[in-house]
């Protein structure tokens, strides 16, 4: 009877509050810096104040003699530590050595040159002041475009600051531009951002000399990959290294990395025979944790007069910073992959150029290459609509693939799994009251008020991903273990750090077993407990990690069904799970969930050949990425006197496939939109011309605050993914990807009567005000300097081999 009452999906789809929240909200959980071990020492890094300098000499004696100091080391001491790893493998990539502590030369402000270890944090910090470094400061390569042309070299051995070029070409691009009725071009800047996770990085290492084991607690998104890399950097067997991620207070990609500090701190713990802890300060975080974005894009679109897109040509310049972190060179190549966005564009020709500069490395920051791609295509489509005097929604609709055309092959070589782009746009326009907003805009212009409406339709790549496309494998592991008491432990190789999978995974497993989420505990982030996994990034944890866990659950259910059938004297196919019971369909036979579990462990009455215990593991290899999509619509008002932008309405209709927990999905969308508004309006990492970091604190770097944000009106359509059995896609980055161009499109739309076609982010009031001043003083000016992609590329090609390309006027 119990079985008949059980609903097929009781917990999945519910707005279940997060299991994680009570401990986080009360501040009673443990981050790396909360951990204290007996005999623990404290480490402080001495960092370069120069962007480019030779280290003439270092004097550490005074620091060493300082009270409480146990050790001071420099790059010279780390003779047995390997380079900080880069997993990016592009054909002609130049890979400079990347020592965890600088050896003889520093290449960005914030590069670690020495580590001071002391009995307490105060002593270490004071002694760090006493490390005297004699630098010979050199000119720095700061502006990526100038750096390509010559001047200071970041790595003189390469004779150039060009790190790599990567081409992506498909279709008849020459023909597309020859046939075009209209060609529009722009230079688009995607400025450098700081991820600013709430919890900065931190590493605690303990080496047990007798056992020869190294345990490293680190605030990371990738505990298993880090374990492997620490073993490689330190030359220790991987079997003796354990990585634990305690609570991780956000990453946004910045902890999808392996940092030099993650080698130095364990090295010190091994050397000194005592636990060593380093907790990153916010200033270190701003200077020496990876940055994101930082591309300059020259883009041209070829169109027919009716708005049909024919071709896209782009030169993507990517500022890599001084060294390659884990995925540094890979990120801008993702931009190329997604550059056609939601549209049918038959011909593409994209060249990605990676440039070394004397700055912190860029790497994955929420969206990682996809926000840049979306920004490019969504801005360009608006520019094209402006040139063709079309409504921006009309040009989009015209070029969307139809819902029936999925799976859709893009000319960049990827296959969009499922989609219905018309529907999300329709819903978003309806919710926003698009026609009313247009009417208000027209009326406003007459009164000198600048209202703008922004539309952005995006598609992105999630569930990273098939292993063929991933540097270190793209599968994920999941283990489901029903414990003797009937409680379920889930071990996931994903490593959530704020996403809430302790809750959503429990919902999935609870439904499968017909039990309560409270009876399911999700364990992650301890390499000694969890089978090898890849981690949490690229909106993959649920679509890949969740699927692994789903399959592991099926394995356990099959086993339990066999046992339950044996116990009840029915066929395994009759066995169903629900209401805390395991029952036989078509009969009144039923056992409590715990009874079956108990039988598996006490093992007195098992079917022949049945292994005791109830545990299943699955390594899931996805067949494709998933491609969530959506439509965002916003309205803004630009203060005509100050240039200040106010977002007064924000509507987002997202489709991330099936949803496990709408509360978590909305939280992800909210956070993503906030960070995207941050990029559009406020945030930028600024280095001055000497390579000094100008935005080194949160007093200068403007992370958006609640009072600066509008209310978000959210809705969803549901187009399940065919790539995994749960039909989920991923949602961690969607807001960041969809929103940024929406805001900029709205501001450019507001200022369109002035002939302003493009503005660079962040849309700081002064920048907007100046553009308005300039436009008003030049009546009739209707186009700002077009991008000269072909010319730029020809110039670059000329530098390489003298080849020339022609640009249609």
């Amino acid at each position, binding site marked *: 009877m119990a079985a008949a009452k059980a609903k097929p999906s009781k917990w999945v789809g519910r707005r279940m509050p997060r299991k994680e929240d009570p401990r986080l909200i009360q501040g009673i959980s443990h981050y790396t810096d909360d951990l204290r071990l007996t005999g623990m020492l404290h480490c402080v890094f001495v960092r370069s104040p120069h962007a480019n300098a030779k280290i003439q000499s270092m004097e550490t004696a005074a620091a060493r003699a300082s009270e409480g100091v146990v050790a001071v080391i420099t790059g010279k001491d780390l003779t047995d530590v390997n380079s900080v790893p880069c997993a990016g493998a592009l054909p002609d990539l130049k890979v400079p050595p990347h020592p965890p502590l600088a050896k003889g030369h520093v290449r960005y402000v914030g590069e670690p040159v020495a580590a001071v270890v002391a009995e307490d944090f105060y002593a270490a910090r004071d002694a760090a002041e006493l490390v005297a470094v004699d630098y010979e400061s050199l000119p720095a390569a700061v502006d990526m475009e100038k750096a390509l042309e010559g001047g200071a070299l970041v790595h003189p051995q390469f004779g150039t600051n060009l790190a790599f070029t990567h081409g992506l070409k498909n279709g008849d691009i020459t023909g597309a531009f020859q046939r075009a009725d209209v060609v529009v071009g722009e230079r688009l800047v995607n400025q450098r951002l700081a991820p600013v996770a709430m919890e900065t990085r931190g590493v605690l290492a303990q080496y047990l000399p007798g056992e020869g084991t190294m345990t490293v607690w680190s605030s990371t998104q990738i505990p298993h990959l880090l374990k492997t890399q620490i073993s490689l950097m330190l030359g220790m067997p991987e079997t003796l290294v354990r990585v634990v991620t305690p609570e991780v207070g956000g990453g946004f990609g910045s902890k999808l990395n392996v940092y030099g500090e993650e080698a130095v701190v364990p090295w010190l713990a091994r050397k000194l025979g005592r636990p060593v802890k380093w907790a990153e300060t916010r200033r270190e975080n701003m200077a020496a944790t990876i940055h994101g974005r930082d591309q300059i894009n020259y883009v041209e679109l070829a169109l027919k007069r009716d708005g049909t897109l024919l071709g896209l040509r782009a030169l993507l310049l990517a500022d890599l910073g001084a060294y390659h972190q884990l995925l540094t060179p890979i990120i801008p190549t993702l931009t190329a992959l997604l550059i056609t966005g939601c549209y049918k564009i038959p011909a593409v020709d994209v060249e990605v150029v990676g440039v070394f500069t004397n700055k912190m490395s860029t790497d994955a920051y929420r969206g990682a290459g996809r926000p840049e791609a979306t920004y490019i295509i969504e801005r360009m489509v608006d520019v094209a609509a402006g040139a063709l005097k079309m409504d921006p929604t009309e040009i989009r609709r015209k070029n969307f693939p139809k819902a029936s055309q999925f799976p859709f092959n893009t000319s960049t070589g990827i296959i969009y799994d499922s989609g219905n782009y018309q529907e999300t746009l329709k819903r978003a326009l309806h919710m926003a009251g698009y026609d009313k907003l247009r009417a208000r805009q027209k009326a406003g212009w007459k009164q000198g008020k600048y209202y703008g409406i922004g539309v952005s339709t995006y598609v992105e790549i999630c569930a990273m991903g098939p292993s063929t496309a991933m540097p270190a494998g793209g599968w994920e592991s999941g283990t489901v273990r029903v414990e003797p008491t009937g409680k379920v432990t889930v071990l996931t190789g994903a490593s959530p750090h704020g996403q809430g999978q302790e809750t959503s995974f429990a919902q999935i497993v609870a439904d499968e077993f017909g039990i309560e989420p409270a009876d399911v505990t999700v364990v992650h982030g301890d390499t000694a407990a969890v089978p090898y996994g890849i981690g949490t990034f690229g909106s993959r944890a649920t679509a890949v990690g969740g699927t692994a866990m789903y399959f592991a659950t099926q394995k356990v259910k099959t086993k339990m069904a066999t046992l339950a059938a044996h116990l009840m004297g029915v066929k395994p196919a009759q066995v169903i799970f629900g209401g805390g019971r395991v029952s036989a369909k078509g009969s009144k036979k039923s056992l409590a969930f715990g009874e079956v579990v108990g039988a598996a462990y006490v093992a007195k009455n098992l079917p022949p050949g049945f292994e005791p215990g109830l545990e299943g593991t699955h390594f899931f290899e996805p067949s494709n990425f998933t491609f969530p999509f959506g439509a965002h619509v916003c309205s803004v008002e630009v203060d005509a006197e100050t240039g*200040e932008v106010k977002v007064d309405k924000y509507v987002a209709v997202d489709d991330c496939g099936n949803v496990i927990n709408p509360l978590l999905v909305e939280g992800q969308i909210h956070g993503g939109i906030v960070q995207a508004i941050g990029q559009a309006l406020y945030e930028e990492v600024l280095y001055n011309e000497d390579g000094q970091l*100008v935005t080194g604190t949160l*007093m200068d770097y403007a992370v958006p605050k609640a009072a600066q944000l509008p209310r978000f009106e959210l809705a969803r359509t549901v187009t399940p993914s065919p790539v995994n059995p749960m039909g989920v896609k991923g949602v961690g980055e969607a807001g960041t990807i969809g929103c940024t161009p929406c805001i900029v499109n709205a501001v450019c739309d507001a200022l369109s009567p002035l002939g302003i076609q493009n503005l660079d982010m962040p849309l700081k*009031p002064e920048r907007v*005000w100046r553009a308005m001043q300039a436009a008003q003083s030049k009546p009739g000016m209707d186009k700002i300097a077009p991008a000269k992609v072909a010319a730029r590329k020809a110039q670059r090609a000329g530098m390489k081999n003298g080849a020339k390309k022609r640009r249609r006027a």
Partner: protein
Amino acid sequence: MIAAAFEYESPRTLGEALALLASRPDAKLLAGGHSLLPAMKLRVAAPATLIDLGRIFGLSYIRNAGDKIAIGAMTTHAEIAACDLFPAASPLLAETAAHIGDVQVRNRGTIGGSLAHADPAADYPAAILALDAEMVAMSERGERVIPARKFFTGLMTTALRPNEILTEVRVPKTTGAGAAYRKFHHPASGFAVVGVAAVVKLRGGNIESAAIGITGVGMHAYRASAVEAALRGRPLSAIATAAEKAAGQVEALGDSYASAEYRRHLAQVFTRRALQAAAKAAGK
């Protein structure tokens, strides 16, 4: 981050504090700590001794003092913003206090600390100037009253002498006048990129007098006396033109967020807005 080592003193009386201030070399007074402590943590400031004023009884109050309201130096921004003495008698200071930083800053930061620190982008100085407030400074030799116009002397410098402690601020009651503070917030720090405080008295529909304090533009806050002069006895319609003189006399500062030219422009815009709001309030 951790500050460099320092001696810490927490006197219980003003007398003790003044004695410490006179005797300790390189001592700094600690009030709410919202500017000093971050500077110390960044090791931009490294005083040998911190004299914490937080435990001195009787430095935190807001009370009626005849035609003025007297505010103890250790009164927090939140207390000023919430105090019911201000709205009817002298609303400008409370309105300004409500614009400072965020909730945490307002709960800890003090008026005395802010004024003595004299950050060029702090909010209070605009209001203090527009109100012609008085600063009461104590030293071992006794009390000295410094008018607002003589208080701010340079970039983060005031007329306070090294052995003086700012103990009280007295703001005149502005009954019958209208007042307003208009501010352009820095999106990261919350400081004023430009902040304009205006007090306007009307007579027969014309402006009898206007007092305007401007912060954020120059090395220190200033009175926009050219604007004030251009408005005396003039109709409200004169505001827009007069406001163009808002930054005429001052050398404007520029940074990566707002250039000097832009700040001058904002000073004009916000002067006009503050004056219009103050005039509207005066008309009520």
